[in-house]
């Protein structure tokens, strides 16, 4: 298997995740799309690390996984907080900052 196969797979998963981020109306659905995108980046990092014989990419994957978990926990806390204030999880109803 060449490096290109892994990079192409990661690119496709990244783009599917981005499709979710820009078309979902539900805030939790948008967060799911972001998870997919970050996951695709991890595939890239590990593949590059493996094919260059350098462990740095895998160390960064450990870091990005930890940051993603923090991001998901905080993002969902914000969603629940917004829900308690505005009674909605639809992204286009959340226009508090709109002038």
């Amino acid at each position: 298997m060449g490096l290109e196969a892994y990079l192409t797979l990661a690119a496709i998963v990244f783009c599917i995740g981005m499709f979710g981020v820009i078309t979902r109306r539900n805030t939790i659905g948008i967060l799911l799309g972001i998870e997919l995108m970050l996951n695709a980046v991890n595939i890239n990092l590990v593949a590059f690390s493996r094919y260059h014989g350098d462990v740095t990419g895998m160390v960064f994957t450990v870091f990005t996984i930890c940051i993603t978990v923090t991001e998901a926990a905080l993002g969902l806390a914000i969603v629940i907080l917004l829900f308690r204030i505005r009674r909605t999880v639809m992204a286009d109803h959340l226009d508090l900052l709109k002038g």
Partner: protein
Amino acid sequence: MSLDALAFWVLAVVLVVSALAVVLSKNLFHAVLWLALALTGTAGIFLILEAEFLAAVQLLLYAGGIVTIMVFAIVVTERLVGESISQTNRRIVAGALAVAALAGIIVATIWRQPATAAAAAQTGDITRNIGHAVMTRYVLPFELLALLMLAGLMGAIYFARPDD
């Protein structure tokens, strides 16, 4: 076709199908379960790349942790609203066009480069090498990460505090 290639193609199909299901499923709960499958498939990709430690971390933190948090968030919000939350997409055609264009650019760029050689020979145990790198060269980012997770934990507790 070698065993590695076969495993890669099976996992690639699983990953792409479950990723599509995550962004297209009408039921939010089903979308989270499809995400769990996609994250497990990624752990399989890590195993093919001989990163056993990362596959274990992926299963524990992502497929275990994040999916549990997501299910909790859905259950809490659905109980508060008292009805099932609809999960629709909008402007699907425009979104699909934009994303397809981006995918085309990325894939064309990847395949324009000359083919890379086979995987580099690994020297020693990868898990041991990761541990060594984290504790020597990357010890400062590692400590900053601990600080970030502490801040994230405190932020989540602050957001989720009961009304007083």
